[in-house]
């Protein structure tokens, strides 16, 4: 077992060795290095062939037509293209956008930018398990609504929205529905022939592919139009200009092909590990699992350890790579906005840790982490004045704190 142990699979994933092998063939002078847009020679044709094969692989994982897949530099760019591109193209039809408070910053910041351009945005509150319901979306729709953007799987707590149900509503009202699926590929079933979704963002690096490449699904039936955000040559049906990075695309294609083949077996193993992990922790006093327990992607476990601050716990677990919703771990010193939006008290947000297991996690690593966590919790509570007060029966909400 190698230290440190990586349990931050929600943040990024290592590139699968099978993917690396494919990518390496596209780099050197002997490899497939040509510009896929070069129409006049075999270097271009072979590169184009590899790009189109990768496109089919991505399309196959989500059950759509390959012509509906556009290459971008990542899910962040796809979110920007989908949201700004659609809003700006259809701005004569209306100016209202619906999204949620717990979207990724790529969605929230894009919406903020559109607000500066005169759009109205409604930020829906999730329920206390983190889910946005189709009814909530329906109730927020107005005559001016042109776009709804909601994530499939939340990156902090792993909960899953009913995007199929929401899509039925948006399609029936002729409203564009964009879904950020960065965290869901390879983890949760996506069927774009069944789901009436118009735009979807994909990341490569959350599904064991390389960073710096992603894709966006743009429906052909019905046909979604967008205003391109990057100009310069009209690549990708005019939606996204720029020379296609063959090696990156081949990497993402291979990663998604593997995801389709291995999703069921991966998930089964990952769920078993995650469940065993939680079973070991749940009996610790004052420990809470954040987010819906049923509608959750298999690898995620966001836990609050009451009376202990998250960053100190991470420091005590120095051989384990994880992340926290604590203010101390953010550059802005604000606790996680996702946990706050669930209605969680700040102190529980400060005490939260996100564990995410993945394809390369072993049972040994989970067992080692469990025993480290248990001992760290005991030691940190020994240091905590809040734990003392809790044990003394003091109601912490009734204390007058001398904050600075």
């Amino acid at each position, binding site marked *: 077992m190698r230290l440190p142990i990586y349990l931050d699979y929600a943040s990024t994933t290592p590139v699968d060795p099978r993917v690396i092998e494919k990518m390496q063939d596209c780099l050197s002078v002997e490899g497939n290095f040509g510009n896929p847009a070069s129409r006049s020679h075999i270097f271009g044709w072979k590169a184009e062939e590899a790009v189109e094969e990768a496109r089919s692989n991505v399309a196959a994982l989500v059950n759509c037509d390959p012509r509906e897949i556009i290459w971008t530099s990542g899910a962040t760019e796809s979110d920007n293209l989908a949201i700004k591109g659609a809003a700006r193209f259809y701005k004569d039809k209306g100016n209202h956008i619906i999204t949620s408070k717990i979207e990724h910053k790529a969605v929230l910041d894009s919406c903020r930018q559109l607000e500066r351009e005169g759009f109205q945005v409604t930020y829906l509150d999730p329920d206390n398990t983190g889910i946005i319901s189709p009814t909530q979306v329906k109730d927020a729709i107005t005559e001016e609504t042109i776009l709804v953007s909601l994530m499939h799987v939340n990156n902090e707590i792993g909960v899953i929205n009913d995007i199929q149900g929401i899509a039925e509503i948006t399609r029936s009202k002729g409203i564009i529905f964009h879904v950020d699926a960065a965290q869901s590929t390879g983890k949760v079933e996506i069927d774009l022939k069944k789901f009436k979704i118009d735009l979807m963002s994909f990341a490569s690096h959350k599904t064991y592919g390389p960073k710096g490449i992603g894709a966006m699904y743009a429906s052909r039936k019905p046909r979604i139009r967008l205003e391109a955000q990057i100009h310069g040559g009209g690549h990708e049906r005019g939606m996204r200009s720029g020379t296609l990075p063959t090696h990156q695309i081949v990497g993402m294609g291979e990663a998604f092909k593997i995801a389709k083949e291995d999703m069921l077996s991966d998930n089964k193993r990952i769920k078993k590990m995650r469940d065993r992990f939680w079973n070991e922790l749940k009996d610790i006093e004052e420990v809470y699992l954040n987010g819906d327990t049923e509608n959750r992607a298999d690898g995620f476990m966001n836990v609050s350890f009451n009376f202990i601050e998250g960053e100190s716990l991470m420091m005590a677990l120095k051989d384990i790579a994880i992340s926290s919703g604590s203010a101390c771990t953010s550059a802005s010193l604000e606790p996680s906005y996702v946990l706050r939006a669930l209605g969680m008290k700040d102190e529980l947000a400060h005490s939260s840790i996100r564990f995410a297991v993945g394809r390369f996690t072993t049972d040994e690593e989970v067992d080692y982490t469990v025993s480290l966590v248990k001992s760290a919790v005991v030691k940190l509570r020994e240091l905590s004045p*809040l734990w003392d007060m809790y044990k003394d029966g003091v109601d912490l909400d009734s204390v007058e704190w001398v904050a600075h």
Partner: protein
Amino acid sequence: MAYSKKVIDKFEKTLENPEGSSVGRWDPKEKDIGTGMVGAPACGDVMRLQIKCESLNNVHVIKDVKFKTYGCGSAIASSSELVDMLLGKTLEEAKEIKNKDIAEALDLPPIKLHCSVLAEDSIHQAVKDYESKL
């Protein structure tokens, strides 16, 4: 954000040997104890500092210190560093300790300076509490 070695060492020492690092508590009602509790759970930082003083010819000297901290590694390290600075000091000397002394001793980066401010606040509260009993 890489942690400074000093913060890590102080933090680990405190975690592994709490009693030897002055972690603990006294009854705040005792006459020779001054207690200062600063911060708030909502902010992610709470420090409770207690000083046990002895008076010699009307000069009050800090004989012993105990603390407990809920906060990040830098907050815990700051409280622990503060304890080292307080032992044997008079109350007047204790009041002179500034947050930047603690920050310098631990190489705290700008984003963690507030941990040292909290530590300084806790001394003032503890001294105030002790003096109120005289």
